[in-house]
């Protein structure tokens, strides 16, 4: 186990297909309610898929004043709103803090596609409508660091702020990096997570062309699974040192205890067993825990044939016979695959599972698959007080990231 300070979560913020805040999202997760529905953002009648996990009822004007709406792509809007929620839940008044304190706080965000929806709109103007130029805000709207930048500006955070982009593992890499920075003493606290908003015509076409999106409901780990369902949203965690949190009387929601990552160094889209297994093993080693102490894994569980079978084999390789005593669920069956935000929404789900003693289910589970012979908590949430849990994220390009969490109050 790496030496360092203990790091706890004191605030969470979530905006996803399951709701516009943490309470709404957790309620849906524990009730096994899916946010997947017909896509409304753009015309998808010609696509091979029509369903997505869109955020409903989110209006930028309700969160950003005047012209600021024009300068923030939807993906960065989700990042800022989730960050505000996390800070609010943590009971922090950042503007009231002195400059030095705000300089010892980090912002690390993840996103897979950044503001490509804005770029897509700009390209339509140039290539389709024949206009001479896209909107002049296209660059600041599109830049991947917009989430981190907008959070720092919005909350007055002046410490290290940057963005990690590792496709579907972006948010998990971001949280892991922030966790290590707080643990090492590089900063005292960090806002970290991810956000994504991929529902634009060009992006949807690109995903369609990859033939990984399910034409129907996403059902991870089921034998008849046919692919992933795209999602959008943002989630942020407020991390701080345990000592710092206790000193200011903050409520502790859970503890981050380990982070592991690896690269498959293999195929660009075909996952390997070894890479994910190495990342899980490294997360547990980093946490100083044994495989047998882990009771729940929030799986990457995309619902593609390749991922779910390979992830099952990776879990069996790492956990051996203990794999039969683990609960493993894919909450993507409810909030969709929110790409660079996915790991943050799932870290939230994992944290809440430990805190509430309820394991969120894999919904739409229809048929068992010998290739995915794990206890996937089918369809209905389960009361189980787990002590340690992992949250897995595995990206296209073979980049893997795994976080380890510990229930607050566990000895």
């Amino acid at each position, binding site marked *: 186990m790496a030496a360092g300070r203990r790091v706890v979560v004191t605030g969470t913020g979530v905006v996803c297909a399951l709701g516009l805040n943490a309470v709404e999202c957790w309620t849906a997760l524990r009730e096994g309610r899916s946010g997947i529905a017909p896509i409304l953002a753009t015309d998808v009648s010609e696509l091979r898929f029509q369903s997505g996990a869109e955020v409903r009822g989110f209006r930028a004007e309700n969160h950003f004043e*005047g*012209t600021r709406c*024009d*300068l923030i792509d939807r993906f960065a809007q989700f990042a800022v709103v989730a960050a505000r929620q996390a800070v609010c839940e943590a009971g922090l008044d950042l503007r009231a803090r002195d400059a030095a304190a705000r300089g010892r706080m980090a912002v690390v965000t993840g996103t897979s596609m950044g503001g490509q929806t804005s770029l897509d709109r700009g390209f339509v103007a140039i290539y389709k409508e024949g206009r*001479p*130029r896209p*909107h*002049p*805000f296209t660059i600041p709207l599109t830049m991947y660091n917009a989430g981190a930048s907008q959070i720092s500006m919005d909350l007055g955070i002046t410490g290290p702020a940057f963005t990690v982009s590792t496709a579907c593992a972006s948010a998990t890499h971001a949280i892991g990096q922030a966790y290590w920075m707080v643990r090492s003493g590089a900063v005292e606290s960090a806002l970290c997570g991810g956000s994504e908003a991929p529902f634009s015509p060009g992006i949807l076409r690109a995903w369609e062309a990859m033939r990984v999106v399910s034409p129907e409901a996403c059902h991870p780990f089921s034998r008849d699974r046919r692919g992933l369902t795209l999602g959008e949203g943002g989630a942020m965690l407020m991390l701080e040192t345990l000592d710092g949190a206790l000193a200011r009387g903050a409520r502790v929601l859970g503890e981050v205890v380990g982070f592991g990552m690896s690269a498959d160094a293999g195929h660009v889209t075909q996952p390997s067993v070894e890479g994910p297994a190495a990342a899980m093993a490294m997360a547990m080693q980093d946490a100083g825990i044994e495989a047998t102490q882990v009771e729940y894994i929030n799986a990457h569980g995309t619902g593609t044939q390749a991922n779910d079978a390979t992830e099952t084999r990776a879990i069996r390789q790492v956990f051996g016979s203990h794999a039969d005593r683990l609960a493993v669920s894919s909450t993507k069956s409810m909030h969709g695959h929110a790409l660079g935000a996915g790991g943050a929404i799932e870290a939230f789900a994992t944290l809440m599972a430990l805190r509430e003693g309820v394991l969120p289910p894999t919904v739409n589970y229809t048929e068992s698959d010998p290739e995915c012979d794990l206890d996937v908590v089918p369809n209905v949430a389960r009361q189980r007080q787990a002590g340690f849990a992992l949250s897995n994220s595995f990206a296209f390009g073979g980049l893997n990231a795994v976080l380890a969490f510990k229930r607050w109050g566990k000895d």
Partner: protein
Amino acid sequence: MDEALAAKVISEIAAVKRIPVESVTLDSTFEELAMDSLDAMNLLFALEEHLGISIPDEAANSIKDVRSTVAGVERILAEKSEAGS
């Protein structure tokens, strides 16, 4: 000065800043209107789009108030019309 063009520039500024059109006058400076460099860029884009003109970067850097914007646009429109005639 072309009154209609002045009214057009004023309404574009009001739209970009999301403020009432009455709050913008020919004598308003960008500073008074709290127009920062991004707002100015947005204004020029709107004027280019809606008037079918191209505003060079040097001209974009020189405008600091409503009157000089109208004058600059007027000049570009005149040049365009001469070139076309």
